[in-house]
């Protein structure tokens, strides 16, 4: 093994065998939970909805507008963004065989933020006036930095996970410093706009963006689900995987590209929502085992659940003030995760 054992109990210590019935049970349980949180996102809000009225529609029907033009698209976007981040996190943890891997680590977020910052600087702050331009700049920045990082991590034509991991950490620190630098130089009105974008939000009105992100997420999911078996074998180590007939290099490239394009789109639309991609796969691994055939789809659904609930809290907790959703994901996710981790450690080490 090229890297120290990072003590991820779920990866090796836990060998609960995945049966078909367990697969179905866990996923249908999660789907049910997803449905519940989706309904919660529609029901909870600052305004009490009259459901019959909301369903009826008609010109100037406020309940209808609130349900179908603000809450539903927002719930759909939160769902897709959460699913994308959860899945990308699980896939990257498998790819890099490192428990600290998360979507924002592979330079996508840093790149997206840099793209956005560059757009702000070049346009002298006017970019805030054209909401379509910021995501485009962010996606472009993400794409470029992913390409650079990928190239940096190729050693003799092969993707090296530990190089990618280190390069990602360093790249994010570099991007962070550049952003702080720009933030200090632009005036604080612009800086505020930049910051509120960086903090992330899944607010959506209307369905255009929402539809695009949903389609994209599902396509990426289908693509990544295919690599569940090779990722399982890869967790035994690169040499073993190769001996077992896995085309290690090809799998790594495919998973890396799939995950980074997924995260690129998600970040471009919703900014930087932290913690989902780190905590959801870990939690699910602790709860249901490390088999990627289950972990990938369950992280997909689990991410959607987590972000739906977090966004509902963000909207309603201190209404009418709306919290940044990233604040809620970190504040609620971290303690829960620590609890699970402690429980698991006690179970494993007695």
């Amino acid at each position, binding site marked *: 093994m090229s890297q120290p054992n990072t003590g991820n109990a779920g990866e090796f210590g836990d060998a609960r065998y995945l049966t078909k019935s367990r697969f179905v049970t866990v996923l249908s349980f999660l789907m049910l939970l997803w449905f519940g949180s989706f309904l919660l996102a529609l029901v909870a*809000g*600052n*305004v009490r909805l009259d459901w019959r009225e909301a*369903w*009826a*529609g*008609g*010109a*100037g*029907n*406020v309940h*209808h*507008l*609130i349900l*179908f*033009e*603000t*809450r539903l698209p927002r719930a759909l976007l939160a769902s897709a963004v959460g699913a994308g981040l959860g899945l990308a996190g699980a896939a990257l943890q498998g790819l890099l065989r490192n428990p600290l891997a998360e979507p924002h680590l592979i330079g996508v977020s840093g790149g997206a933020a840099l793209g956005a910052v560059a757009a702000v600087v070049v346009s002298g702050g006017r970019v*805030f*006036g054209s*909401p379509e331009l910021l995501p485009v700049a962010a996606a472009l920045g993400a794409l470029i930095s992913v390409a650079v990082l990928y190239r940096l991590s190729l050693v003799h034509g092969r993707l090296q996970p530990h190089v990618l991991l280190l390069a990602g950490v360093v790249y994010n620190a570099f991007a962070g410093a550049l952003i702080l630098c720009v933030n*200090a130089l632009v*005036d*604080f*009105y*612009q800086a*505020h*706009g930049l910051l*509120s974008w960086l903090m992330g939000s899944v*607010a959506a*009105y*209307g369905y255009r963006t929402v539809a695009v992100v949903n389609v994209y997420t599902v396509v990426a999911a289908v693509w990544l689900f295919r690599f569940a078996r090779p990722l399982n074998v890869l967790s035994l180590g690169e040499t073993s995987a190769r001996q077992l007939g896995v085309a290690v290099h090809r799998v790594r490239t495919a998973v890396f590209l799939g995950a980074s394009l997924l995260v690129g789109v998600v970040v471009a639309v919703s900014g930087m929502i932290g913690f989902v991609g780190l905590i959801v796969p870990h939690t699910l691994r602790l709860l249901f085992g490390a088999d990627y055939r289950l972990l990938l789809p369950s992280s997909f659904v689990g991410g959607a659940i987590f972000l739906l609930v977090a966004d509902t809290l963000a*909207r309603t907790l201190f*209404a*009418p*003030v*709306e919290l940044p959703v990233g604040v809620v994901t970190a504040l609620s996710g971290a303690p829960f995760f620590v609890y699970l981790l402690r429980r698991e450690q006690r179970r494993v080490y007695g």
Partner: protein
Amino acid sequence: MRLQPHGSRLARKGFLLALCWLSYPCWSGAEAPRRIVSLSPELTEIVFALGAGDRLVGVTMQCDEPPAARAIARVGTFLVPTVELVLAKQPDLVLASPSPGNRRAVEALMHMGLRVVVIQASSVGEARDAILEVSRLLEQTTKGEELARAFEQRIAAVRERVTPDRSPSVFFLVGRNPLIVAGAGTLQDEMIRLAGGKNVGAMAGHGWPRVDLEYLLAQDPEVIVDASMGSEEADNGTFWSRFADLRAVRSGRVFVGADSRLLRAGPRVPEAVEMLARWLHPQRVPLVP
């Protein structure tokens, strides 16, 4: 819209509408908006100044002036308005100022068929124009013209008094750590000029530049206006007593307090200019009620 309302309900609505129409003798007056949501503190102040505060059904968390505005329902913050709360108020007019955070929400409201008017108010001239524009929207044009005339006259009166004097140098702070000053092109820069002062911050840059302490010490302004948030509560003058070498501190011409008059391009701009003039030219501009 997706579905047509039930036939009988449509008839009932039509009947009610007709009843309203018949019972309202002056139809042109009825077209003036009666349920207004304001998404900016400046515009809230203008609506109140026009005597139409009772028509406001929603304001932001930052709309705290006049005190009566605090009793109105909140529909989010100035930077992040909550769309569903605005919708729930069923406004017939939404007033908004452009800001980096509210763009999407404001566009969504327009898209949903609400009457939304975006009014920029970030300079003295724009504040006066905003008064006129809001008065037109509220069909209070006479009142608006009166207000705008008084607005101009008060500022002109200040200018007349202070013009013969030499302009003292002023530093206008909105943040202490880091030091953030009102630079060129800001409302404060303009108000300082109108009040007969020379804004030192304008040399540091455009907008809201951050400057370091050395810059402040080197410029050594004659007057410091410290409108940084929470500055009054944070200390009782202890912050500035550390800089006893500054001319402004020595001569007791540091004015501390985040007075919203100094920060908003609304109907109270003349008050702010008078206040600044009093600080800059105490002999020329006596205390006026």
